[in-house]
């Protein structure tokens, strides 16, 4: 038996959480160190997986399987392929950064970090599970820490943190209810076809389902995953949720949790139900336009930095959605790249905003001005995140956007043209916000703010490096993604979109 | 010719009387007694079906024994509860016990 690298990656944070819970609450330093070490261990392991994955061979690697509930065909089955590795890596990059972004927390440290570590495990689990039941189980593991973290450590501005936490959680649960319905329908149908109960994704994907069934179940999944991905018009949780959440949760939520939606849509939606995807894809594409343009417009009128990034992440998810909806190799490659890219970018953004908020106790754009004088490093972080957000080449986001546009353009001409207007709107709101916060005359009332230093630099270094390396050497990630998506496309045959557009 | 149906209808009637008693009496002990009626109706079913359908086996009778055991436990606990309530509230009238309302 090989070394179970995925399980180790997955459960190191849990072990950390248990250790933290065993410590006395006063030992905050030790608690933070344990959190940092355990997330670092996961990060290193996932980097190893990223490097060691055999791209020529493709398919699921590092697989592990332990039978669990045999009557239902449930196995504790893990495995990664080209689609999940970038997201696992993303989770750990952000998880590690999130620990450092929360370094200044002084109240209920033990609760905070143990919940955070559980959250990281939950998110990671969804990406490496190859069994539907395990996938769903980890997804549910995520919900509770999120809720607790928001209502315990969040901040109240336009909406109270209780409202934000409740909204977030209920949306997540509504999405998961639809998801569960779809999953159960799938399971039952598959058992009716083969007579064998199985929750194995590969097995489920290999079956042919009746078209009406596929459409129905895909619609359920599109709703469930779409809610998770903040698909228009189910996006209302996202800006409020981020605004209310503490920094680390905003980072993880915007960075990776949302990506579960896109990941699920590809892994379960497209792979298992290609027929349904064909019919419903145009609908998703239309809604994606809603995301891109509508949310970008709203960003223009926002004053709270977290709302700007919150709505902008809704807008960027539109690119992912249209990439998925275009149903071709290039666009799906782009969608996954975009998920990775947006993850690191949004996390960096939230880390910077959180840092600034912690010191200045405001997030209102108009309160600031000329902060680049006092805090050049913070300004650099903001600039990197902002330029990545508007899709500057050299940043990893550009790769995602460009690839999505190329892929989507071959399927939906008009839609893509509308979606590309997003790059102009994004430039406007991002540059305005950054300009108003960072540039302009020095304001003496912010002279007491200290620039980033010590642990605060970690998110900037880790995430900034990821953004730049990914942007300058895109083939390192793209080849990996392509090996996974290529397999999907090969497996489900050529996809075409049902409607004429 | 008396058959299975007659026994079942007899038990149904017994059960119905039990339900009505349970729903319409205000004395807690009377309600408890109604419940006993229902349990007995169930037992009649077990034994009758055991006799007519799975003849030569004893599983149905066994279950009625278990029901009796559980009923005995239920009665003892139920009566103890009633006594306990009576000690505090000086009443066994169910209409007076609505502390858990809305």
């Amino acid at each position, binding site marked *: 038996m090989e070394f179970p690298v995925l399980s180790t990656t997955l459960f190191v944070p849990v072990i950390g959480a248990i250790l933290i819970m065993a410590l006395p609450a006063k030992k905050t330093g030790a608690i933070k160190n344990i959190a940092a070490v355990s997330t670092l261990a996961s990060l290193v392991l996932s980097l190893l997986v990223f490097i060691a994955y055999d791209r020529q061979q493709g398919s699921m690697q590092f697989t592990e399987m332990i039978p669990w509930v045999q009557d239902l065909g449930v196995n504790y089955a893990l495995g990664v392929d080209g689609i999940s590795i970038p997201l696992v890596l993303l989770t750990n990059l952000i998880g590690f950064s999130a620990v450092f972004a929360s370094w200044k927390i002084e109240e209920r440290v033990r609760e905070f970090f143990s919940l955070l570590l559980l959250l990281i495990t939950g998110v990671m689990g969804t990406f490496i599970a190859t069994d539907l039941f395990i996938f769903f189980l980890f997804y549910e593991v995520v919900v509770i820490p999120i809720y607790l973290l928001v209502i315990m450590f969040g901040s109240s501005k336009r909406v109270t943190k209780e409202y934000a936490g409740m909204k977030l959680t209920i949306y997540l649960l509504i999405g998961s209810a639809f998801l569960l319905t779809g999953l159960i329908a799938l399971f039952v149908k598959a058992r009716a076809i083969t007579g064998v109960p199985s929750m194995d994704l590969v097995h489920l994907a290999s079956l042919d389902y009746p078209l009406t069934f596929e459409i129905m179940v895909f619609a359920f999944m599109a709703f469930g995953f779409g809610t998770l991905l903040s698909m228009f018009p189910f996006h209302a949780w996202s800006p409020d949720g981020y605004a209310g959440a503490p920094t680390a949760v905003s980072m993880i939520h915007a960075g990776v949790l949302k990506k579960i939606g896109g990941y699920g849509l590809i892994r379960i939606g497209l792979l298992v139900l290609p027929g349904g995807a064909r019919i419903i894809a145009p609908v998703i594409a239309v809604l994606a336009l809603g995301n891109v343009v509508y949310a970008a417009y709203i960003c223009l009128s926002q004053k709270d930095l977290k709302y700007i990034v919150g709505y902008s992440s809704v807008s960027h998810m539109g690119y992912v959605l249209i990439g998925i909806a275009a149903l071709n190799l290039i666009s799906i490659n782009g969608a996954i790249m975009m998920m990775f890219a947006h993850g690191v970018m949004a996390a960096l953004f939230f880390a910077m905003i959180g840092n600034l908020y912690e010191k200045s106790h405001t997030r209102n754009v108009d309160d600031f001005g000329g902060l680049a004088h006092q805090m050049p490093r913070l300004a650099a972080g903001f600039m990197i995140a902002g330029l990545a957000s508007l899709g500057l080449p050299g940043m990893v986001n550009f790769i995602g956007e460009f690839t999505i546009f190329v892929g989507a353009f071959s399927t939906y001409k008009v839609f893509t043209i509308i979606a590309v207007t997003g790059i102009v709107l994004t430039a406007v709101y991002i540059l305005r916000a950054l300009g108003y916060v960072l540039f302009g005359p020095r304001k003496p009332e912010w002279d007491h703010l200290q620039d980033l230093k010590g642990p605060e630099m970690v998110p900037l270094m880790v995430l900034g490096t990821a953004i730049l390396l990914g942007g300058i050497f895109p083939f390192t990630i793209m080849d990996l993604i392509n090996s996974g998506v290529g397999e999907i496309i090969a497996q489900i045959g050529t996809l075409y979109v049902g409607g004429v557009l | *010719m*008396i*058959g*299975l*149906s007659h*026994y*079942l*209808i*007899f038990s*149904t*009637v*017994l*059960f*119905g*009387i*039990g339900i*009505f*008693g349970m*729903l*319409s*009496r*205000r*004395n807690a*002990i*009377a309600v408890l*007694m*109604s419940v006993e*009626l229902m349990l*007995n109706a169930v*037992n*009649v079913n077990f*034994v*009758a079906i*055991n*006799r*007519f*359908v799975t*003849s*030569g086996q*004893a599983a149905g*009778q*066994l279950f*009625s*024994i278990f029901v009796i*055991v559980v*009923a*005995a*436990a239920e*009665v*003892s*606990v139920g*009566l*103890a*509860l*009633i*006594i*306990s309530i*009576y000690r505090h509230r*000086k009443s066994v009238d169910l*209409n007076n016990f609505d502390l858990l309302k809305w």
Partner: protein
Amino acid sequence: MSTAAANLQLQDAVFVMIAIVTTGAALGVVFLRNIVHNALCLVLTFLGVAAVYFQLNAGFIGLVQILVYAGAISVLIIFAIMLVMDKEINQTNLPIPSLGRRIAGVYITALLVITLVLAIYFTAWPLATGAGAPFDAVGMLAELMLGDYVIAFEAAAVLLLVAVVGAVILAKGVEKQ
């Protein structure tokens, strides 16, 4: 033949009589206003049911029924009545004051009985041929109880123990410090 047939008819007549008496007693349990009368009717019902068991070739169950229900439980109930009665004895078993709930009770009871009777009528019962042959029910019960169902049997034992302890504590009350 004729004796057997007569025997059967006699049995039928006996069942009808038992059923009428038992049902009447059950009605008495519910409708009489004196709680002590109710309790006595309940004893009668228990006995009637025990008679039905005997008729169904389930002598052991019948005996258990008499011992446990007509014996123990009835006594318990009467003791309880004795402990809690402090009112006019003829007003001890009144219907609930809410007319609506009473009507709802009537409706539900009626519907339930009708549907159950319909269900019984329309069910194709897989009747066993040659039913009613006597067999060693007690021996089989013993085997089942200590064989396949031993866990349930033990659980029932524990349940009884817990019930006894619980009843004692509840009835006795916890002393305040």
